[in-house]
């Protein structure tokens, strides 16, 4: 069995080691610059707490409290002409803030505007489903649960959508290793053959580029084929490509490169 290494600090590891590198920031503008957005923001502010609001890449971003999410989206849908929820999901900020950020991307075809509602929840906190407002939230919320483990209250069918139902761990969390944890590494073996088979089948080869030039059990060089398991460390014979073994098929002559003729005169 593969030795277990703790994977909790994956996010702490720095992938980029240039100490002068600064992450590029998209500039933020004040909402008052855009009359349509300003009116929308006023309508939200009239009823709910707004923690932050700005315009970024021509889209308004409004940060609200997580327990207002259903009411705010309802207001936007029914009164502010944002009838589409084009996308929603979560972002993992657990390492820096201990929170998930949930975002709802809204689209108004009538106003030709896109607007994003954001809120933050704690790791163990649940969020209210907006599936009653937008059918598109149904699968998005299931995916959010599947990938981040954010539980959604009042969802009609809160189950994993992409990963198998008996999967352990939430793959899009930053703490989840890209190549999978212990459970993921043995998933198919455990599921099909049972845990006993781990020893027989062995660990995964995570280096697909690894080719052992002299391994004739798993590799064979085209044009240099030798019987299974032959030792070729001293070199191997050339095997011309054959399409018919033995004497070939009745009436069909074996192709022989030696006897072939190249026709130079096309109109022969």
């Amino acid at each position, binding site marked *: 069995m593969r030795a277990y290494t703790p994977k909790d600090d994956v996010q702490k590891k720095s992938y980029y080691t240039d100490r002068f590198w600064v992450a590029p920031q998209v500039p933020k503008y004040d909402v008052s610059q855009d009359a349509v957005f300003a009116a929308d923001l006023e309508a939200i502010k009239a009823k709910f707490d707004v923690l932050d609001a700005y315009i970024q890449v021509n889209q308004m971003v409004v940060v609200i409290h997580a327990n207002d999410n259903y009411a705010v989206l309802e207001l936007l849908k029914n009164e502010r002409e944002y009838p589409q929820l084009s996308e929603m999901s979560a972002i993992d900020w657990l390492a820096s803030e201990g929170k998930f950020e949930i975002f709802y991307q809204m689209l108004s075809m009538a106003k030709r505007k896109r607007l994003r509602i954001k809120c933050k929840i704690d790791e163990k906190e649940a969020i209210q489903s907006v599936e009653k407002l937008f059918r598109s939230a149904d699968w998005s919320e299931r995916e959010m649960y599947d990938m981040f483990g954010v539980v959604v209250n009042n969802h009609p069918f809160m189950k994993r959508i992409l*990963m*198998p139902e008996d999967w352990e761990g939430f*793959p899009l969390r930053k703490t*989840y*290793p*890209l*190549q*999978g*944890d212990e459970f*993921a590494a043995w*998933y*198919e*073996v455990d*599921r*099909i*053959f049972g845990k006993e*088979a781990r020893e*027989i*089948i062995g660990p*995964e*080869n*995570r280096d*697909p580029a690894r080719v052992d030039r002299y391994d004739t059990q*798993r590799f064979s060089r085209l044009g240099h084929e030798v019987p299974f398991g032959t030792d070729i460390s001293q070199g191997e014979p050339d095997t011309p490509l054959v*399409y018919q*073994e033995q004497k070939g098929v009745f009436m069909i002559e074996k192709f022989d490169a030696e006897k072939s003729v190249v026709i130079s005169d096309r109109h022969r």
Partner: protein
Amino acid sequence: MAQHQVNYLKDGGLPVALTTIDKVVNWGRSNSIWALTYGLACCGIEMMASGASRYDFDRFGTIFRASPRQAELMVVAGTLTKKHAEFIRRLYDQMTEPKWVISMGSCANTGGMFNTYSTVQGVDRVIPVDLYLPGCAPRPETLQYAVMMLQQKIRKEPASRAQKPKRLM
């Protein structure tokens, strides 16, 4: 009355062919490899192209079947996810002996570029494979070559059912 006498033994006109059971059976098997349609990802497109008119697998007697019970070759064409691994094993078990597997493309061979948590790192972790076909995606000619190599392999095997079923475990 004219007498027509044909000396069959002399003129090579004997309407009888002598061979061995092994050869006859293997001739039949190798020239009627019915493959299970098993396109899992982009390689599946190349597999379909091999079956279609331009490359025309029917010439080799390879006809794609949509049921594992009618198939003896499984061309695993594409990325096998861990979620799906269980089903590939089930379909493989449903195929009748004798059966062969071609692992088509890097993904099926080793997991390929999907060096991630959700991809099986080589279909040979789940089912026994006879032929690995490199490429991403292998062209239809490559698949044809693979089928021809498989035919050669079949012809080399003894036809008797004394051969024991292949098992990964």
